[in-house]
């Protein structure tokens, strides 16, 4: 069981942290250009080990952990569910993001002295974002009896999910020793999308003096669920293999979209570096197998009202409900925006060193710094309000070909998230491993967020003449 789960972790639900604070500007890893196309990465050419070049996992929940629900502490499971619901607020979120790089590569264009590069790749991504629907959870757990006068907010229902593949081609150029810029164009192919982020309405039971009935009961609903690439799986006549068809749709028959990444690196001084990037500024035009469900209307429930004085007006609660809040199915295309990420960093380097482990016969001295400290900023668009994080980091060059990066991140999910990353190169083989939230690894089930990432690349530099 566990082994299957580990496999599942590696190959299906390998998740990137949305915020890849360890990868960002960790330029000994070619994939760092995915989070800043203007990262100061250089090589003659590189390619990622197919399927193994970028594997990682991330899940975050701002109000509860797996331990809260599934610990073997003898507490009744239903009580634990209640505790989780009670301590959550409707602004708490559950976020997962997973990416699997299928192939990637890059090469320098122009001559030996050129510092222009082309990169390309294909990765698959899964995004899920949900706010904790606290009010509806309370209503389902407890019913309305003890909540007379409370409006249960249907706007608490707020989620989106998407599976897509991304093909990208990028370019970056170091125009001089001070400045690098880069950009990347992306074609998104979305295999499945579900979006329900613009809900409103309420379920209300109140008591009001002077009204003929005991309760004043109203459901006012403005619910909408837009889906693309999912509707046919839910039909009774569907008898295919969902996983296979979904994969097929994701890579070959998805709803298409376009996006761009852009970034820069600027050396204010030799040892003072500024970077900034924007990633996934783009959209998907959801057009394949689309279906939108809506429940819109207002229903007031009065119960049976006999009329002893003639006119018979038959009532039917369900018919009336369906008439008041009809379920409509619409089939128009819609546009979803990709979660856009913004990164920035400032880095101060110290501890000047020279590559003294090799004979430098060319007279040209490649000095470098053994240490760097700095701060990073991250923001991502999300329903309601954007997510933010700030990170302090320390980077150390242990050996010439082995780099360590440590981060301390404050975000919605944790205020003591320490991450550690290692990237090493042996010959042309570049291996990296990045682990986030290390403090929680002694019992990861208590972690409210977790991420790891690892990968293998083959990187080729110019041979020394």
């Amino acid at each position, binding site marked *: 069981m566990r082994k299957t789960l580990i496999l599942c972790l590696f190959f*299906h*639900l390998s998740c990137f942290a949305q915020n890849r604070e360890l990868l960002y500007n960790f330029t000994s890893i070619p994939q760092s250009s995915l989070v800043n196309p203007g990262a100061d990465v250089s090589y003659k050419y590189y390619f990622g080990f197919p399927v193994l070049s970028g594997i990682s996992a991330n899940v975050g929940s701002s109000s509860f952990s797996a331990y809260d629900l599934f610990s073997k502490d003898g507490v009744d499971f239903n009580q*634990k569910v209640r505790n989780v619901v009670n301590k959550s607020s409707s602004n708490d979120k559950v976020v997962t993001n997973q990416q699997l790089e299928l192939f990637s590569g890059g090469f320098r264009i122009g001559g030996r002295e050129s510092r222009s590069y082309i990169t390309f790749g294909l990765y698959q991504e899964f995004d899920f974002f949900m706010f904790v629907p606290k009010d509806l959870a309370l209503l389902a757990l407890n019913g309305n009896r003890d909540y007379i006068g409370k409006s249960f907010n249907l706007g608490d229902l707020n989620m989106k999910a998407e599976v897509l593949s991304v093909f990208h081609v990028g370019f970056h150029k170091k125009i001089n020793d001070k400045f690098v810029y880069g950009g990347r164009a992306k074609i998104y192919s979305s295999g499945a999308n579900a979006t329900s982020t613009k809900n409103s309405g309420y379920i209300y039971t109140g008591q009001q003096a002077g009204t003929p009935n005991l309760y004043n009961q109203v459901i006012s609903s403005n619910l909408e669920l837009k889906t693309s690439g999912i509707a046919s799986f839910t039909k009774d006549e569907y008898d295919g293999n969902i996983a296979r068809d979904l994969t097929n749709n994701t890579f070959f028959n998805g709803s298409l979209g376009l996006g761009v990444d852009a970034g820069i690196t600027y050396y204010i001084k030799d040892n003072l570096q500024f970077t900034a990037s924007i990633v996934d500024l783009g959209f998907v035009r959801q057009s394949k197998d689309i279906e939108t469900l809506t429940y819109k209307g207002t229903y007031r429930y009065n119960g049976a009202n006999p009329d002893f004085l003639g006119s018979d007006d038959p009532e039917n609660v369900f018919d009336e409900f369906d008439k008041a809040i009809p379920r409509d199915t619409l089939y128009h295309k819609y546009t979803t925006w990709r979660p856009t990420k913004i990164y920035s960093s400032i880095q101060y380097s110290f501890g000047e060193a020279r590559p003294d482990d090799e004979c430098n016969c060319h007279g040209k001295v490649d000095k470098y710094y053994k240490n760097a400290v700095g701060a990073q900023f991250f923001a991502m668009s999300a329903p309601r309000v954007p997510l933010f994080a700030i990170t302090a980091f320390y980077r150390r060059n242990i050996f010439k070909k082995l780099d360590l990066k440590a981060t301390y991140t404050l975000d919605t999910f944790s205020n003591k998230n320490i991450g550690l990353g290692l990237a090493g190169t042996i010959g042309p083989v570049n291996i990296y491993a990045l682990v986030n939230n290390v403090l929680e690894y002694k019992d990861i089930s208590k972690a409210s967020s977790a991420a790891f990432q690892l990968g293998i690349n083959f990187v080729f530099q110019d041979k020394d003449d």
Partner: protein
Amino acid sequence: MRSSSLSKISSILFSVFLLFSCSSDLDFDQVNDFKIEPIFVANLAYFDIPANKLVDDGGTNIYPDVRDFDIFKNKFFNDRLKKAEFDFEIENNINRSFVINMLLLSEGNQILQTLSFTVPAYTGTPNVIKYPTEVFENARLDLLKQTQKIGFVVVIAAGPPLNSESLGNLKLRSSATAYLVIE
């Protein structure tokens, strides 16, 4: 559609939670213990009859009416309803006494149960009566679940005649409490 995409999403979410089991001792079988017991209240029935509509000669008269009541056609609700309670509140400002019968009727208009409320005549003091809660459990609940219609019979006992000038109202308000068990 909605439920199945939700279940797909929740299964994905759940698998994500499962990942954590790789490094810690958790018991996911607890999900099987999942059981919630929400309690819902809702209006059941109400009416408000002004005395001046009950024109009568002072003898015993009967006013009947039948309403569709189809909540028990909902299988999800029916299967999970473990207990129900009905509460009635009747206010009489008419100088006559009444008997109000509530009949729970099957599809074929068979009387499954009769709830009967005696309402004393108005004598000038406020006359709001809260009747004891009707509790439906076991066999009585099974009868309730077959209910498709609710019939009301208002019986006016003999007393001073009523005409279009008569004052006062006979008001009934009632609520149902449903105890559900969902697992």
